């Protein structure tokens, strides 16, 4: 049924996005890239996929400029798709940008709190999270003005309104603010894909629910793991967990009580995927070993973070097996982001001549 009218408005864009997906780097590409001796070789390897965007780079560019250029390509393609989107797809894509917007607003809040010139920060903002009225936020000189202008000028107002007042911006750690916003955002997005008449009951809501649930679980687990040893209390931590996902509600309740890695492992026991992640990570020492001289996880064991990324990419890849769904846009953006991360990682390994861990990228195609 949903296939009947989908192509009227969205057929073209679905085609475009599927085309973009085919442009993603494959395992063979990555293998070639890891053989590169220097960044110029890498640039050459990226030629077919990123040609025009990398052309402007000087010989032997820095990894950060490489990352910036590859992001630029994602942004320009995203903008093209967004410009052609209508109706509920346009709204869906707006939702997609809110996540980046939260990061940008958090950045501006940080700047305002420390009384920096926030105008300089506009360059550092993520271009996907850019919104028309963002420069207006720079006019604010104190946190109260900023709070009011965020409420008026940004689409993020609903996420602020319910849970944060302007004193909170001043007093709470910016990370708590950011994660509160993100939690509200995820819940809202989840509600949106499941209740909007164009999407409810279609493959979109099905696939997006899976993706968002995974994202919610991942955040809950990460927040728990990262909060050990910080001043974040258990009650505050509980407020940052999104109220959906496969861990909700029992898992999150247990997470909120967890004191250590073991507690988290128990909490996620109910979900087979996470259980296996934790078993694998548990063998590799888990997050408890910051003192090792290798400067991170050993080359043999993958970190929990890596496994989450891997899982996310697999879900995103699976999205493309479905038709008539907006979720492919989301998946495509996520896959491209991972691709940029992979390129940056490989470039970094080549630049630093640390080939032994160059294989830590995640490739699903």
């Amino acid at each position, binding site marked *: 049924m949903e296939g009947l009218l989908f192509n009227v408005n969205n057929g073209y864009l679905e085609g475009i996005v599927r085309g973009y997906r085919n442009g993603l780097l494959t395992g063979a590409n990555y293998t070639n890239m890891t053989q590169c001796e220097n960044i110029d070789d890498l640039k050459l390897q990226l030629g077919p996929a990123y040609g025009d965007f990398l052309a402007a780079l000087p010989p032997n560019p820095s990894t950060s400029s490489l990352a910036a250029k590859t992001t630029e390509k994602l942004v320009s393609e995203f903008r093209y798709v967004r410009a052609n989107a209508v109706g509920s797809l346009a709204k869906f894509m707006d939702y997609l940008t809110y996540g980046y917007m939260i990061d940008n607003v958090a950045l501006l809040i940080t700047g305002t709190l*420390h009384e920096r010139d926030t105008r300089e920060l506009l360059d550092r903002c993520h271009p996907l999270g850019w919104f028309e009225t963002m420069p207006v936020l720079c006019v604010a000189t104190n946190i109260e003005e900023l709070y009011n202008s965020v409420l008026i000028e940004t689409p993020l107002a609903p996420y602020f309104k319910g849970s944060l007042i302007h004193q909170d911006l001043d007093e709470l750690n910016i990370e708590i603010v950011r994660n509160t916003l993100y939690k509200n955002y995820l819940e809202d997005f989840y509600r949106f894909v499941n209740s909007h008449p164009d999407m409810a009951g279609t493959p979109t809501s099905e696939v997006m629910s899976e993706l968002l649930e995974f994202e919610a679980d991942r955040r809950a687990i990460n927040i728990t793991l*990262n909060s050990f040893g910080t001043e974040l209390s258990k009650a505050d931590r509980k407020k940052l967990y999104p109220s959906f996902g496969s861990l909700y509600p029992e898992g999150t309740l247990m997470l909120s009580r967890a004191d250590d890695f073991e507690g988290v492992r128990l909490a996620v026991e109910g979900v087979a995927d996470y259980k296996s992640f934790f078993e694998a990570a548990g063998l590799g020492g888990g997050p408890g070993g910051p003192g090792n001289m290798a400067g991170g996880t050993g080359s043999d064991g993958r970190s929990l973070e890596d496994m989450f990324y891997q899982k996310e990419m697999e879900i995103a890849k699976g999205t493309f097996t479905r038709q008539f769904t907006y979720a492919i846009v989301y998946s495509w953006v996520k896959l491209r982001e991972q691709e940029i991360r992979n390129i940056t990682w490989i470039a970094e390994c080549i630049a630093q001549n640390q080939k032994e861990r160059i294989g830590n990228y995640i490739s699903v195609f």
Partner: protein
Amino acid sequence: MSGAGDREPVFPTRQSLGLMKAKLKGAETGHNLLKRKSEALTNPNTVPEITRRIDEAKRKMGRVMQIASLSLAEVTYAVGGNIGYQIQESAKSARFRVRAKQENVSGVLLPAFEAYQTEGNNDFAMTGLGKGGQQVQRCRETYARAVEALVELASLQTAFVILDEVIKVVNRRVNAIEHVIIPRTENTIKYINSELDELDREEFYRLKKVANKKQRDTAAADAEMKKKNAEREANGEKHKAPEVDDSTPADILQAEGDEDIIF
């Protein structure tokens, strides 16, 4: 007299000879002491030891910095963006501090830096709460180690530079004393001695001359006296003898006065 430029501009007097001798003695004592200091500074326990440790520290720094920058890459990978600004802004007070103290190596004060971390000062503990937090913390640990290596290296390097400078100065002084001051003082002493000898010789010669002249004069006066006596005896004027006696004392006085002038 070897090379007029190689001696000090002094008058060749006995007083300055005494001064010069004292100076030579002082220079020799100083030379000995400085020589000993220079040997103490260059002995195998200081400079080669320090160079060895600098070498070690540099290698360690290379290793640690490499690990550190890779862990930064890991953070970028995990967080998926640039968190530099956020980190900068959330850092409020230094967690990693350096204390400076002084060490005494054979009379040379060497600064030594000591790194320490203040506890319970974790300004960005919550950075990357949503994702990448573990990587951020790990990266911080690695960089703390890297900075530790740098501090150690800085301490050694400063010690090396200062020690090198001191050794150079001491050696320069030793050489200056050995090759310039001592020969010059010796030359001066030699010069004063020779001048004084010459003066002695001149004096002796002059005295001899004066004695000769005196002898000659006396001889002439004797001859005259004899002549006069002979004349008087020949004339037989015995009453005039007292007159001659009166005039002779006046003559003797005059002759003495003349001698004074010559002196």
